[in-house]
């Protein structure tokens, strides 16, 4: 039975019990059936023999005296026995003719076939069982002499029927018993195979979950119980060695990636992190910085005060590094007194990033320069820090470390306790930006006279000034004039844009109010940076400024860029609508350089688009730009808003623009930005011109009338 291999132990035990029982029962049944066959045959034989004895005794006289009639009558008395087919009495004589005979009418046909076969004359006393018949020959004796033979032929049909019935009932009992045996086997098997199944299930669970803390429950203390015990012990050993391996792995990792003294990542870990950061920067276009720190005079401390003190100093340095860095930044110890810090996610703008890195480095320098108290002794130490910036177009991790290391040496050469960039221009840039920030803050807080507003006139196609754009100027006391292109980004990053914007707003409005009071009907446009525009309280600031200055806000225009719209369009629209109730107008500055869609533009309550000067400058060199300019002009017509071109520097440009439908201009071709006094003069001059022309025409008319 090959299928038996795949069966479970439970099934095997079940089959074993059932088959053994089946075998035993079958054997018993076979024996009992054969005993029954024998008994039944013997009983039949006894019955027939008794009958035959009775008949042969009774028939002696009839045979002896040749009374066939009586003999036949006597034989006839057998008819009570349905099994007897046929009986005959033979006289011991020369011929084999039957003296008397009896035929059971039920077996008439059978008799006719059989009677011819038997030669009773030579038949000896006794009996003979065939499959279907019992032939019995018993002698008829008289006074010790055999005078005849009584031959009886008995059908075994009813015997076989009886045996068949017995067999069937035995088999039925056998099946019933087997069924109960099967039920019993199931119960017994559970006792034996249950623990096995439990064991197998437990093993499966453990190997599936890989959880070696599981234990298999032990049932009985037999062989299976011992297997379970052993298995549990084995699992326990595996679990223990797993825990050991895990602990070892952790230890190895600690040794491999962390510095034992300070607990900071070591050089290997640093290199991994740095490579990761470099990859990330090339995806996100952010800039990062690598700071290389070396403690000044550490060797002296170490030599004079001992290694223990030196180690404690290093620990303290590590502690300070850790506590003064942002979460994403990684400090590491790469040598005796050398540390490296990775600064991540600095600004995209390299200049801003450099400034950020510098300020972090300076902060660290200050932190590490403050006195240390080690074993109740005050120690002084300071770091020299080298900075190397990295971004998407940068070098490998090794190169970066070398760069930062070199910068650090430079800082040491320059006199220690310093921060030094690897790239000299970067150093300058960062420093300059730092100075700009400091100085701008100073200017805004305590010396606003350094700042002033200049105004660039905006003219129509007749060259008449209808408005002006206010532009900020910063006159640095020592560095002279600083371009807004340089200090505005710094202000944006540092948040100085808000006080600066406020200053511009209030000064611009004051100026407008002055001009309005002088009857100069000019428009004034002020640039608002996105951060300023979306700053909380901007609406209130503007409202208040408009009120205090008492200007006619109808002539006041806020220039916003497309990037404002890109933030939260709904919020922006809401704010613009509120401001519009004051009478303030909006224009989109630098139009064409952003990504604003027409759909957005239609939503906004704007009154003017300013074509960016870059398009105007390339009008005759780049045919695309001419097309863009045309498109913008056409779009303004479609939107029903005004259009103005800025940065117009030549007559050709002005003519092209005019021919293509633009009728407002701003640029050097007309006027440079100028101080308020100059602007006022121009406005007064124009006003006078107007009145003169009006007067001229009036005079001419009256003269003509005369």
């Amino acid at each position, binding site marked *: 039975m090959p299928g038996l291999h795949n069966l479970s132990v439970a099934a095997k035990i079940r089959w074993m019990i059932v088959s053994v029982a089946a075998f035993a029962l079958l054997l018993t049944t076979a024996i009992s059936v054969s005993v029954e066959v024998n008994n039944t045959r013997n009983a039949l034989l006894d019955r027939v023999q008794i009958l035959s004895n009775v008949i042969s005794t009774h028939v002696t006289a*009839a045979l002896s*005296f040749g009374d066939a009639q*009586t003999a036949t009558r006597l034989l006839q008395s057998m008819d009570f026995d349905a099994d007897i087919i046929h009986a005959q009495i033979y006289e011991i004589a020369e011929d084999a003719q039957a003296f008397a005979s009896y035929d059971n009418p039920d077996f008439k046909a059978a008799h006719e076939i059989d009677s011819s076969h038997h030669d009773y004359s030579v038949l*000896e006393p006794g009996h003979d069982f065939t499959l279907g018949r019992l032939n019995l020959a018993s002698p008829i004796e*008289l006074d010790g*002499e*055999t005078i005849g033979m009584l031959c009886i032929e008995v059908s075994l049909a009813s015997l076989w029927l009886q045996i068949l019935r017995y067999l069937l009932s035995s088999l039925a009992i056998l099946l019933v018993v087997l069924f109960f045996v099967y039920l019993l086997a199931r119960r017994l098997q559970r006792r034996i195979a249950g623990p096995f199944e439990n064991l197998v299930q437990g093993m499966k669970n453990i190997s599936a979950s890989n959880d070696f803390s599981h234990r298999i429950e032990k049932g009985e203390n037999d062989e299976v119980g011992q297997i379970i015990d052993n298995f549990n012990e084995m699992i326990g050993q595996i679990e223990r060695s797993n825990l050991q391996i895990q602990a070892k792995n952790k230890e190895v990792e600690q040794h491999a990636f962390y510095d034992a003294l300070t607990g900071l990542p070591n050089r290997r870990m640093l290199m991994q992190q740095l490579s990761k950061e470099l990859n990330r920067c090339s995806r996100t276009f952010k800039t990062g910085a690598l700071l290389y720190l070396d403690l000044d005079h550490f060797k002296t401390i170490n030599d004079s005060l001992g290694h223990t003190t030196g180690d404690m100093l290093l620990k303290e340095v590590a502690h300070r590094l850790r506590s003064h860095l942002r979460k994403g930044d990684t400090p590491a110890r790469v040598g005796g007194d050398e540390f490296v810090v990775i600064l991540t996610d600095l600004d995209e703008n390299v200049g801003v990033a450099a400034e950020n890195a510098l300020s972090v480095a300076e902060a660290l320098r200050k932190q590490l320069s403050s006195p240390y108290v080690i074993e109740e002794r005050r120690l002084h130490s300071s770091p020299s820090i080298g900075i190397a910036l990295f971004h998407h177009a940068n070098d490998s991790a090794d190169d970066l470390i070398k760069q930062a290391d070199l910068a650090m040496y430079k800082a040491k050469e320059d006199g220690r306790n310093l921060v030094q960039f690897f790239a000299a221009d970067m150093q300058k840039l960062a420093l300059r930006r730092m100075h700009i920030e400091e100085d701008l803050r100073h200017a805004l807080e305590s010396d606003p006279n350094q700042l002033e507003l200049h105004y660039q006139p905006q003219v129509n196609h007749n060259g008449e000034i209808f408005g002006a754009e206010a532009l900020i100027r910063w006159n640095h006391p020592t560095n002279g004039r600083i371009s807004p292109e340089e200090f505005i980004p710094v202000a944006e990053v540092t948040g100085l844009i808000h006080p600066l914007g406020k200053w511009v707003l209030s000064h611009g409005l004051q100026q407008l109010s002055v001009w309005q009071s002088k009857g100069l009907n000019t428009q004034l446009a002020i640039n608002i940076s996105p951060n300023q525009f979306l700053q909380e309280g901007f609406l209130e600031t503007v409202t208040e400024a408009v009120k205090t200055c008492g200007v006619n806000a109808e002539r006041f225009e806020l220039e916003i860029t497309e990037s404002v719209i890109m933030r939260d369009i709904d919020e922006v629209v809401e704010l613009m609508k509120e401001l519009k109730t004051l009478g303030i107008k909006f224009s989109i500055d630098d139009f064409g350089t952003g990504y604003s869609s027409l759909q957005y533009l239609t939503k906004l309550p704007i009154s003017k688009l300013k074509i960016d000067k870059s398009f105007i400058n390339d009008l005759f060199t780049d045919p695309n730009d001419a097309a863009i300019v045309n498109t913008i002009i056409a779009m303004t017509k479609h939107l029903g808003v005004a259009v103005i071109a800025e940065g117009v520097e030549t007559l050709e440009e002005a003519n092209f623009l005019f021919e293509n439908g633009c009728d407002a201009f701003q640029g050097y071709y007309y006027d440079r930005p100028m101080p308020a006094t100059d602007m006022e003069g121009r406005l007064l001059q124009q006003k006078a011109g107007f009145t003169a022309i009006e007067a001229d025409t009036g005079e001419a008319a009256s003269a003509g009338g005369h």
Partner: protein
Amino acid sequence: MKRFAITVKAVTLILLVFMSAQLVAQDQLRDYELKAVLIYKLAKFVTWPEDSGTTFNICVYGQNPFGEALDKLTGELVNNQPITIRYRSRITTDLNDCNVLFIATSANGHLNRILLATSYSPVLTISDIQNFASFGGMIELTNANQQIGFRINVKAAKAVELNIASPLLELATIVGGR
């Protein structure tokens, strides 16, 4: 067993052949020859009390109707005793020696006396005298419809402790109850 069976068969065969030859040869005595054989056969169905002598005596009273037919039985065994044939003509105590007493029709007149004489001994009385059994005889041979039959007075036989086997009674007409 087999050899015994063969022997029995052979003996019976020889005997029957012999007997039938006799029957054919003596045509006149045919009836009594048959009766002689009947007497022999009848004896086999009767059991006598134990005190019998060494021989089995078949006596004929009156004029012998058997001729030599009965003598031919001499030496045959009944009850393991060799048959002796005796002829009697007087009513004496001699009759009590007989195991079987055949009373010939010639003795019809003395029937009562004969029966009385044997009424205290185990003597099986047989006769073909009409109504013999009714008169107190034990076995009466009848000859109705060309066939020999029996009338048996079981009571008479029982009275002298003669036991007549029931198979014989199957063939007989019982007289005077059983």
